[in-house]
């Protein structure tokens, strides 16, 4: 069988067939769908569950679904979840220990839950977020076994952005609305007088084999140029941006800034921003013992640098103030992440802005730090 390599076009039936083909391969298909007033990521059994005809309105501290007349499935920006909920789940057992009759202990690794995921509709910002978590959780000396297993099995079908949100700023983090790497297939949705269809680009052998299982046609020039045009236009319609300066140097030099007191007065240290952020990876561990007292389990769960216990030492927390915890979060994202893992920790998805109950906006905070650094320099 010769795999299709050039760009192709799928119509809505083709997308249905794609989801069926993935399911019949035994994959767990996960994609966006409408639930409880938001577009969430959930297991899909058919492409009909995609949020056809829904878009979102975003602002700092605000997220609202709005109907779209064009019936598009992927014309909404990031929701409250990210793919880390599946690759790096909120709770996972690591191992267990049992007392043996001879008075010893035996330790047993927990076999990770690792379905073969197919992620449908991964935004380019989220492709970059996955690559960032890959570096953190599999790129160092020790690998997170469960993450590594799920990640290697996962198939990624990207959906390029044609409708950036008010809180989006991927372009100013070095990304953009086009999917350029790290996908098996990349879709670009086109809805016009010629119909509702998806331009498909192939990013891997596996993607090529998959495409060949479903009805498609070679991409016509009109669909290609309309799709390119929409993605290019999205690049110029970002809702927000980070200042175009060396952020690493700016944050590194702003540890004593007054702005931290200002933001600390507004921040509730609730940790929502870390939960919704697709790159935040921090976890803690817990010991869970059963009633017999002979069996104990070690669990890992998401943690947040906004939690007072996060920096706990027996003399007390290192980061006691809200000021120091917000500073840790922002400085880690934009500066020290480079030192630790070789890239920035922010992809500009805007989730932390939309889901902050206090409406704190990372781009506004960085701009304020920049202004403060500027006035310092002028003094």
């Amino acid at each position: 069988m010769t795999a299709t390599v050039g760009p192709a076009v799928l119509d809505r039936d083709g997308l249905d067939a794609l989801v069926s083909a993935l399911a019949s391969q035994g994959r767990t298909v996960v994609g966006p769908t409408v639930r409880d007033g938001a577009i969430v990521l959930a297991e899909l059994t058919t492409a009909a569950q995609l949020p056809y005809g829904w878009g979102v309105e975003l602002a700092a501290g605000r997220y609202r679904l709005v109907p779209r007349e064009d019936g598009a499935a992927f014309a909404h920006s990031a929701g409250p979840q990210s793919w880390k909920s599946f690759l790096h789940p909120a709770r996972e057992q690591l191992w267990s220990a049992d007392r043996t009759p001879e008075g010893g202990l035996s330790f047993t690794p927990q076999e990770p839950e690792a379905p073969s995921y197919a992620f449908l509709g991964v935004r380019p910002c989220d492709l970059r977020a996955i690559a960032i978590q890959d570096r953190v959780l599999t790129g160092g000396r020790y690998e997170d076994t469960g993450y590594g297993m799920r990640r290697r099995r996962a198939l990624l079908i990207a959906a390029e952005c044609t409708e950036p949100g008010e809180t989006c700023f991927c372009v100013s983090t070095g990304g953009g609305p086009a999917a350029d790497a790290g996908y098996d297939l990349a879709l670009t949705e086109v809805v016009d007088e010629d119909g509702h269809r998806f331009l498909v680009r192939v990013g891997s052998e596996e993607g090529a084999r998959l495409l060949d299982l479903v009805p498609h046609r070679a991409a016509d020039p009109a669909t290609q140029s309309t799709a390119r045009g929409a993605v290019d236009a999205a690049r110029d319609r970002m809702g927000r941006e980070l200042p175009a300066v060396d952020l690493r140097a700016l944050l590194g030099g702003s540890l004593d800034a007054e702005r931290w007191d200002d933001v600390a007065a507004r921040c509730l240290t609730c940790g929502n921003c870390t939960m919704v952020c697709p790159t935040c990876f921090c976890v803690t561990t817990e010991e869970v013992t059963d009633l017999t007292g002979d069996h104990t389990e070690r669990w890992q769960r998401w943690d947040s640098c906004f939690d007072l216990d996060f920096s706990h030492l027996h003399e007390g927390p290192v980061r006691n103030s809200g000021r120091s915890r917000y500073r840790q979060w922002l400085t880690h994202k934009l500066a020290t992440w480079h030192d630790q893992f070789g890239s920035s920790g922010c992809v500009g998805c805007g989730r932390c802005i939309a889901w902050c109950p206090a409406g704190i906006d990372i781009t506004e905070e960085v701009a304020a730090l920049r202004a403060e650094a500027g006035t310092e320099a002028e003094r």
Partner: protein
Amino acid sequence: MTALPVPYRVAGRRRETAQTVTLRLEPVGEALADFAPGQFAMVHCFGRGEIPLSVSSVQSTGGLAHTIRGVGAVSDGLCAARTGDVLGLRGPYGTSWELGRARGRDVLVVAGGIGLAPLRPLILSALAEPEAYGRVSVLVGARTPGDLIAREEMNRWRTACTGMVVDRPDASWRGDVGMVTQLLGRAPFDPGGTWAFVCGPEPMIRATARELAHRGVPKERIRVSLERSMRCATGTCGHCQLGPLLVCRDGPVLGWDRAERLLSVREL
């Protein structure tokens, strides 16, 4: 973070102070890779949890020791372990003292309280090869005389200078009172040709390292061991961050040239 603990049996237990116990551990089956002085293990106490502990002794047989101060659920549980009990260990993790870099030079060890524990194997290595190093001095500070660990052992060490100081003396104390930094003038060392190894509470590390740098010891040769919250030790939980560093990976031992700036920022 998915390394599995390996069972170690408590082969011996010695009480050091009212709060502190040394456990000698032997692998039940296969041993972990060799620990270098300064490195640490994640030690699991059944049903309570896992904490980072430096090795306070390393044997060529695969055996090792931890000296533990009981300050909370897990460390209290480990202090209460009996001979014959089994614990789970992961490691070795982190950077080591790298004493070998100090060959031919004066060696100055400065410890505060339990901070002497991770330095103990370094001191023994240096004293085991007197011809390889210059003058070896050990300066130890503690809160009270009762908080000094390895006190008798210290008296047997053939150092150029061994100094002890306490903050709050009791009726029996005849020695120095105050901060460990005040002993620095007494130890014989040539600042430009010295490697210093420092471990203890953070204010003590700061004061000592500053004073040593002031006396002319190159900052890169002032090695300090830092403590941060640690849940994984494998660089994947984020807890041990100190600015650009992951202390479990880039530390716990690092040079004052890197640590100085980081420890001078409040609540970093």
